[in-house]
């Protein structure tokens, strides 16, 4: 069947684009941008074709990549509803962000390099989505790490960007360490299987197959997701990653890369034991709360959105942990739309404000940038979970799952929903309403069409994504029993019939958050909260000192060990070994003492003599 070539095209076109740009077209910006954008847009249409061709029947296309006895690694592409949906998100949202980047990056001296890195990233991300086995997923997992390193450190001559890139890569590596060990455990316990489908069937047929290793293996695999999806305690890299260009923040740190962790959890959902799921749900819930609290006291527009992303990722992970992976994926999808929209809107604001990112220097942008304002508003409402925008439905699915499984997590999740509304409207009121707080506002103007159109498209998606059957698709993909409504009207009212407590609590949280934000920030010239909260506000602004704590513990300890090793190496190992040689010299006499003359000819001579002596010894025998 000729359609079989499609997944390969989707996957490798961006890599080809990245290769060609790097090798040949670094000096030609137009060609570079065309190649990069072309690759992902073609990928999007190819995905749509795949939808038509395969109609959700799972397909796998594999070739053998490594063949060593019991270590059989395939390079395989798996197409099933889960990966197809994710492909659509990555190529769809990715296409919009690629197009937007043409406008945002205009005039940057390394314009072509930017698109090369962007395409490399797209390739890696698509690889994760299409992988059909653990090791292949790990391969692309690492590649996503490195492309994000390249993109965060895109302006590498800025010390802060270079540091942020390094931090992101290393933090991710800590997660990958667990991921790798998890893969090793699974591989040995399951007698050499790495393929997802095979493992799934094996585990379903023999529930005790993993034995005592099940919990450990599951949590180690989860470590990978903790790193990539920036969950507590490895969340520290994501806010720093905002040093990258804004389209990167939108693509990587909102819509795709950080979603990879959640996607992976859903992909390998079958290996998690109930205990492991409890841990996962609490890690997710805690991250959601922690990040939401921090977001309340940030002043950098991108950082607020970054912490909001963390918080929403916490929701998704919590959803997976509550045995509702379809809810996690649903929220991932809607979040990809509205968070990409918010980031691109923020980019538009930053672009207009000449790279000013402090919200307290903005204000009154509503009239200067109407399209950005309206689309940003849509994104905010969707994120805050206002019926009937998409965020309401996906958040409600998670709230319903929490309500069903665990009351403490439900309360926590509702609280976070309130906080979400509060910090988002704080951002909106300060940035777009009130009076202009600096002169840059006077010169601000709406961004060009190439940047504004992606905003409009994303805004429409953010509005309708909740009621076009996405949840039903994921439920079908991830669970066998599905009783999800069809038809738009049915979907619109479904949450109120299905779990009225959750739906009403979510809306109540929105109302409270909005009211509080309106009270405090509607006409504020400076932040009133620090005065009211005192120390707590300082802790929130300083991200609860996590960076400082890590700096003082993990990093210091590693550095201390390194210093000690270096000292031992320099003074003891080197000294001892040479000392032994010298001591031996004195004992064994002349032959070796000559070796210390420092004369090279002597060394060469000694060598020949040595060989001769031994040979003579052999011949003599």
């Amino acid at each position, binding site marked *: 069947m000729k359609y079989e070539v499609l997944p390969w095209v989707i996957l490798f076109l961006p890599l080809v684009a990245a290769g060609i740009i790097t090798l040949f077209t670094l000096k030609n910006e137009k060609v570079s941008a065309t190649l990069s954008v072309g690759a992902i847009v073609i990928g999007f249409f190819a995905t749509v074709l795949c939808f038509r061709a395969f109609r959700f029947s799972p397909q796998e296309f594999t070739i053998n*990549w*490594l*063949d*060593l*006895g*019991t*270590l059989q690694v395939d390079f395989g592409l798996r197409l099933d509803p889960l990966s197809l949906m994710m492909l659509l998100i990555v190529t769809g949202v990715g296409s919009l962000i690629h197009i937007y980047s043409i406008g945002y990056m205009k005039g940057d001296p390394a314009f072509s390099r930017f698109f090369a890195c962007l395409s490399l990233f797209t390739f890696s991300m698509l690889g994760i989505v299409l992988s059909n086995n653990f*090791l292949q997923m*790990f*391969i*692309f997992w*690492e*590649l996503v790490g*490195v492309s994000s390193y*390249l993109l965060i*450190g895109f302006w*590498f*001559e*800025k*010390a802060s960007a*270079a540091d942020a*890139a*390094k931090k992101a*890569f*290393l933090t991710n*590596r*800590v997660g*990958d*360490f667990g991921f*790798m*060990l998890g893969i*090793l455990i699974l*591989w*040995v316990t399951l007698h050499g299987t790495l393929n997802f489908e095979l493992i799934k069937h094996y585990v379903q047929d023999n529930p005790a197959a993993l034995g005592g290793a099940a919990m450990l293996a599951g949590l180690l695999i989860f470590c990978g997701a903790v790193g990539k999806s920036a969950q507590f305690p490895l969340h520290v890299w994501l806010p720093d990653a905002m040093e990258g260009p804004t389209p990167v923040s939108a693509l990587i740190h909102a819509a795709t890369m950080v979603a990879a962790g959640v996607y992976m959890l859903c992909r390998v959902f079958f290996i998690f034991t109930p205990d492991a799921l409890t841990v996962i749900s609490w890690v997710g819930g805690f991250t959601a709360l922690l990040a939401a609290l921090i977001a309340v006291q940030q002043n950098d527009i991108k950082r607020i959105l970054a912490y909001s992303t963390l918080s929403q990722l916490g929701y998704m992970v919590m959803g997976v942990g509550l045995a509702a992976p379809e809810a996690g994926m649903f929220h991932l999808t809607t979040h990809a739309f509205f968070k990409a929209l918010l980031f691109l809107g923020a980019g538009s604001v930053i672009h207009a404000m000449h790279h000013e990112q402090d919200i307290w220097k903005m204000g009154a942008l509503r009239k200067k940038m109407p399209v950005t304002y309206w689309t940003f508003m849509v994104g905010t409402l969707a994120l805050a979970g206002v019926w009937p925008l998409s965020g309401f439905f996906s958040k409600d699915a998670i709230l319903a799952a929490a309500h069903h499984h665990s009351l403490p997590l439900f309360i926590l999740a509702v609280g976070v929903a309130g906080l979400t509304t509060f910090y988002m409207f704080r951002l909106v009121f300060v940035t777009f309403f009130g009076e202009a707080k600096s002169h840059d506002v006077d010169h601000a103007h709406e961004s060009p069409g190439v940047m504004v159109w992606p905003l409009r498209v994303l805004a429409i998606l953010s509005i309708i994504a909740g009621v076009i059957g996405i949840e039903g698709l994921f439920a079908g993909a991830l669970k066998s029993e599905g009783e999800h409504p069809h038809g738009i009207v049915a979907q619109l009212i479904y949450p109120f019939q299905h779990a009225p407590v959750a739906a009403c609590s979510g809306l109540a949280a929105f109302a409270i958050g909005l009211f509080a934000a309106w009270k405090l920030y509607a006409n504020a010239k400076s932040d009133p909260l620090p005065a009211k909260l005192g120390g707590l506000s300082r802790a929130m602004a300083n991200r609860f000192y996590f960076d400082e704590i890590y700096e003082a513990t993990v990093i210091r300890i*590693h*550095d201390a*060990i*390194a*210093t000690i*090793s*270096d000292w031992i*190496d320099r003074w003891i*190992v*080197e000294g001892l*070994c*040479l000392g032994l*040689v010298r001591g031996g010299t004195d004992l064994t006499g002349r032959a070796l003492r000559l*070796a*210390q003359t*420092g004369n*090279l000819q002597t*060394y*060469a001579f*000694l*060598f020949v003599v*040595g*060989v001769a002596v*031994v040979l003579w010894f*052999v011949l003599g*025998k």
Partner: protein
Amino acid sequence: MFSFASLRLCAFALKKMTTLTYIFLLPLLAAIALAFVPRNFAVIMRAVAVGVTFVTMLLGILMFWQFNGATADANGYKFVSTIPWLGAESLGIACKFGVDGLNVGLVLMGAIVAFAAACCSFEIKTREKEFYILLLVMTGGILGAFMSTDLFFFYFFHELALVPTFIMIGVWGRGERKNFATFQITIYLSIGALLALIGLIALYLQLPTDVRTFDIPTLTKYFAEHTMAASAQNFIFPLLLFGFGILVSLWPFHSWAALGYGSAPSATAMLHAGVLKKFGLYGLIRVALPFMPQAAQSWMQILAWLCLGNVLYVGWVAMRQKNLNLLIGNSSVAHMGMIFLGIASLNLIGVTGAVVIMIAHGFLAALTFGLSGYIYNQTGTLEMSELGGLAKKLRFIGVAFVMAAMAGCGLPGFLNFVGEVTVFFGAWQVPALRLVTVLAVWGALIIGAVYMLRAVRAVMHGPAQEDKTYATNVTDANLWRKLPYAILIASLLVFGFFPRFLTDKIKPVTEQIVNMATTGVAKTIVAQSKP
């Protein structure tokens, strides 16, 4: 006159030799020929060295390409050839060459690195004649050592390559501690080589007088059928393990390496760290494991813990380095630990992974030392505090450097990843090595990444140091200078994307070796109890 005579000898030998022999003979003959060129013709020296190694590289690629189609002899070696008038029949020494899956990749890697090293020798400005002669001798020696199927010449060619190393560091080296570095590397490597030599000769003496031979295939067959006495194994194996181990900078005998490479001219460091160092590992896999299975099994646990010395401890040491070359040198030592771990796992997956890392690290070490040499030439320093933001001006070098760093921390796409991950799987299969493996994974994924990224951050990223004297002069590599780096990166990527080009060749041989090293014990006991 002499060179004319040698050419005629060569013509005579043509009939008896295959592609393989030219690969190592060409550099040696070129070295002899260069001896007759007057010393003012430095350009000719350079051209000859680059040209000859280029041909060598092409021959190496050709050999690798034809390997699958070539016919193997009874022992599984291909392109077998002999140089008849060298050797001593009475002693069982014959100058024989051949490649099988184990060394074919190493020879290819050696040939490519040799060309890259010759290209990177532009920096040599004094006594070019001697330098290029030594470089060619070293190249010939290295390649000869890897393709010899006779233990005597295996050792002889190694020494032939080793001695020029010491001289090159001593004469053309850089840095304040150059003399100490030369002293240290000479002492260590001579002792290592001597221990290995004693071990090899003792091995030879284990055979009955009438069948004594240095021929590796014959020895392999002999020891497959006759188990060596346990007492002999117990004293020969450690000799080989530590003799070869010292040559490969096995912890705690590693301190010569970083300083030695840090002080060496780029080409020497590239050839030694990249290729010659693999001699010890090759010897361990080819000779020590299959011939002395009992001793091997009892020593592997110890080797596994020693390898942590390389991966973790030297990794930490690398984190603290302030000089780029010392950092790279230490990272090279740390990578050796991964190879030792693969060997210690003593199974098909682990040992194959070890061979893959040997090849990968060859390309990588050559790449990193070549790049640091370029940076040194441009800036006159390798102190990382003096450098910074170089990627802005050295765009190509910057990209190559980042790629090298990524390959160094085991990023997929590069061959190093294939090797490391294979070693992890191999070692994980051995329950007794689980703890070591966990720590080694930490060393490879985290510590490796920390020092590699630290190097990138300090040298390439960050604000450019405009106040430094070199700031105005640094220029990016021109097309010619890019070539060696491009070839090395391409090699890492091609094999990294398609590892089966290598593993399918390596697998049959490692399978046989692992079988001898693990089941050999049981099999021979059964054989002995029969009569």
